[in-house]
Structure formats: structure tokens, C-alpha cells
């Protein structure tokens, strides 16, 4: 699964720590997601989408093979 977390953060001008605190996870979890090493649960993906005020599909995208 691909995601645009890093870009979304840049647009909103927020750090990994800001996002982490807003959605109640550790900063390492944000980092893992940005490196596509960790795929968040639906609940977490929705929280991220709400934080950026965008639909989930704009942030997370399926890759071929998913």
C-alpha cells in the first residue's frame, strides 16, 4: 500500500510528532507508515484522513498485488 503521508504533512506543515500526538500513536508509528513498513488499521487511517481533512483515498492507495 502506498501513501502520501509525507506530502500531506508538508502541505499542512506539520511534523511527525504533531501528527502522532493528534491521532494518539507514537512518532515511530508515523515514521513506519511513511516508509510503508506499517499499514495502519482502518480506524487509524480514518483518523489520519480526518486530521488532514481529506478522504482516505487521497492519502492511502492500493498497489498492484495488494
Amino acid at each position, binding site marked *: 500500500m502506498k501513501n502520501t503521508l509525507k506530502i500531506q504533512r508538508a502541505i499542512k506543515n506539520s511534523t511527525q510528532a504533531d501528527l502522532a500526538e493528534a491521532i*494518539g*500513536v*507514537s512518532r*515511530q*508509528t508515523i*515514521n*513506519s507508515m511513511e*516508509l510503508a513498513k*506499517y499499514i*495502519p*488499521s482502518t480506524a*487509524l487511517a480514518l483518523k489520519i484522513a480526518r486530521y488532514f481533512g481529506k478522504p482516505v483515498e487521497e492519502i492511502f492507495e492500493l498497489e498492484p498485488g495488494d
Partner: protein
Amino acid sequence: MKNRFLFPHSYRRIGWLLFVPFLVFGLAVLNHDFQFDFLEISFGKSPSHGTFESIFSVNTINLSDEIATLGMILSLLFIAFSKEKIEDERVAQIRLDSLHFAVYLNYAVLAIQVIFVHGTAFLDVMVYNMFSVLLLFIIRYRVVFNLENKA
């Protein structure tokens, strides 16, 4: 995220503080037949010393090994299953993966020991096996957790 069955974060430190002395105590009991005299309890009337009955008497038992075992189990559980400072679903995932890994590896090692260790030596294998799942879990979990936290 709600995580059931976990101890508070501070229990990890308590776990380590208990683990070190209980490990030393446990190894001393296991390898050197070490016993604390005050942990000896007796029930019933023990047969007088030197008689035939006294050799097979079970009227007195020393609780050293029991205390050492329970102390090890409790301290390892505290270390293994205390919460992180920030609990989230990724930590839960690492924990689950590590548990899975530890159970597999533990049984793989046990299977090898079943094949190669025989007689009374196998009793030692079983004693170590009481703690090895938790030990393997702790090692795998800490290694993965710390590696990812460096990133």
C-alpha cells in the same frame, strides 16, 4: 487503542529489579542445590533422624525452588507484558509477531532437545523450558522495538 492484559509501564522496571536476584537465586538452587533454611516448612511429625523412615520422609520440604520459580515467572511476565510509554496498534503488532516468533523458536529448540537430550538431563531441559518462551519473546520484542525506534 485498548490493550487488555498488560501491566502498567512502570512494572517493567519492577520486573528487572526482581528478575536479577531471582535469576541468581534460581541458578543457585538448580545448579548448586542452594537452599534458604528459613524456607523450610514441616508438617506432621517427622520420623527421628537416622531411621529408615527419615530417608523417605516428605514431612519437610524446602520452598527455595518454589519461591525461585514463582519469582522468575512473575518478574519475566512483568518485563514481557508491561505497557510501552505510548501504546499503539503498531506496538501491539510487534508484540504479537514476537510472541508468535518466540513460540515457534521455543518449540523448535525443544524438539531438538527431545531428540538429543536423554535421561535425567532432560529434567534440566524442562526446567529451562519453563522460562524460555518468555525469555525469547522479551529478546525478540526488545530488539525489534528498539531497532524501529532508532529509525
